[in-house]
């Protein structure tokens, strides 16, 4: 089937072509400018961060040989030839890994509980007073922006060395992160049920309990699980500053050059993170699956 394509008269076409070319040229100029600014920023950053490609290439062999060394036992054999020797400390390490998971679990739960009790004040549609919303939001922002490990450093001094500092640091950081996500879920919730409950004469508390909570509970659980997964990863380094968990063993092994121990501990951390990743993914799929069916 032939389709007739109408061609505009040449003076009209010339005007359109001209406008098109101008638009393209303007876009190109803008793109070039943005790229130039970006590269300038990169160069400044490279100078600021003391990037030295010569050091990098000279010592790049070190990286390869480092990985070579962490996969070599004391007697010069490869680690996987003698797994018993490689994982000689597996009892202790498994115990520490358990502690790491427990730290992140308790910390996440603490954080989720605090975030749960604060988030209705932070959400725009449910907050009882604007000043309260402002205060809670700033508080959550503070808890979220200061990295967990900085809290851990300070808590180690206040509460003493040990997992307690790690738990509290995890809890505060999770409060900040979860509080924001929770309040965003609440802001997306349908407000009609709230009006329905309020029209029966219910107070603020009942409105939240019977109108908002049923809508948002699954979302809360899903975000809390995701946070737990992130926290396991973060808790694995809390030990660097003395706040408990497997990080302590790892940092000792790295600093004292117990090469095969480094690879054994790293492998155990990676496997644990994998397992937790898959486990929470499965749990989240179930939660959301149930939500979709209802």
């Amino acid at each position: 089937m032939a389709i007739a394509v109408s061609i505009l008269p040449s003076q009209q076409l010339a005007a359109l072509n001209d406008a098109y070319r101008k638009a393209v040229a303007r876009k190109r100029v803008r793109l070039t400018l943005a790229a130039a600014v970006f590269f300038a920023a990169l160069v400044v950053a490279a100078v600021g961060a003391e990037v030295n490609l010569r050091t990098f290439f000279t010592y790049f062999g070190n990286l390869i040989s480092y990985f070579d060394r962490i996969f070599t036992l004391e007697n010069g054999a490869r680690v996987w030839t003698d797994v018993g020797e490689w994982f000689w400390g597996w009892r202790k390490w498994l115990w520490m890994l358990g502690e790491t998971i427990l730290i992140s679990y308790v910390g996440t739960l603490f954080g989720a509980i605090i975030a749960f009790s604060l988030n209705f004040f932070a959400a725009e549609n449910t907050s009882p007073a604007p000043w309260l919303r402002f205060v809670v939001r700033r508080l959550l922002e503070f808890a979220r922006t200061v990295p967990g490990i900085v809290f851990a450093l300070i808590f180690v001094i206040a509460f003493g060395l040990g997992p307690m500092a790690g738990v509290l640091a995890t809890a505060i950081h999770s409060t900040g992160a979860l509080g924001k996500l929770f309040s965003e879920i609440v802001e997306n919730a349908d407000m009609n049920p709230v009006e329905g409950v309020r029209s029966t004469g219910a107070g603020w508390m009942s409105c939240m309990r019977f109108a908002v909570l049923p809508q948002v509970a699954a979302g809360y659980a899903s975000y809390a699980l995701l946070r737990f997964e992130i926290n396991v990863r973060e808790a694995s380094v809390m030990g660097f500053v003395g706040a408990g968990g497997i990080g302590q063993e790892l940092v000792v092994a790295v600093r004292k050059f117990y090469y095969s121990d480094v690879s054994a501990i790293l492998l155990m951390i990676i496997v644990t993170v994998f397992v937790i990743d898959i486990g929470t993914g499965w749990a989240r799929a179930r939660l959301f699956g149930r939500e979709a069916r209802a």
Partner: protein
Amino acid sequence: MSRLPAPDRERLRGLYPQIFKQPVSARLATPVMLTAAFAVFVFGLVDLDFSPARLVSGLQQLGWITMMMIPPDPGSSLPAYLVALGETLSIALLGTTVAAVFALPVSLLAARNIVPSSLFRFPVRRLLDSIRGVDTLIWALVWINVVGLGPFAGVLAIAVSDFGAFGKLFSEAIEAADRKQVEGIRASGGNAFHEIRFGLLPQVLPVIAGQVLYFIESNTRSATIIGIVGAGGIGLQLAEQIRVLEWQKVSFLILMILVAVAAIDWISSKLRFAIIGRRAVA
């Protein structure tokens, strides 16, 4: 005032049998799960040495520390702190850029619509997963062994750990892209390279740019902490001042970090609006 008629239970039971006759397993699932979660929580508290006495004395200490932090005061080391902050921002920008540049080609290999064979995709995905499973701080420790103490180790640490994250995010963005443009390019006689360049990249680049900007922002946060193990930046100063209990300087450094993160946040959200458009972000 009229009253509602009393509900006819038998009729409702007949109408909605699936609500009235749930199996015991379904009814017990939630309470059992909650109890188990709570039991683990209590066990954790006991196992991790949570005692009320420790908590109270720790909170008292924390109260003291907070009092000592006020007012924030950099003493005479303000210039050094500003340099350290600049270093931190440089680490974040450079690390993220390097990671994005290297992750883009690899993410193509991990995307289902580019590499249909799972035999090739699987190892790439697992590699990205294991890189992501190791925290940035651990990478920093490793790189310090390779290139020595200093911010360069921080750049490499951020670059490597973001490489894992970007590889996954980019490949997801590529998998979510529309096939029609790609098919159009193929129909007009383009080869595989043309398909990627003209069919795929224009779709995914804005998404990727948005993600990279977001990561620069979140890496400003990560870059503040890798200094704690000696990889340069403001974290080094912070860890030092905490260890010597100079609380006024500590609070000043924390304030500096907060301000810097807020500034980067603001800039990057402006840029993201400019790139993806207001509609997509909101």
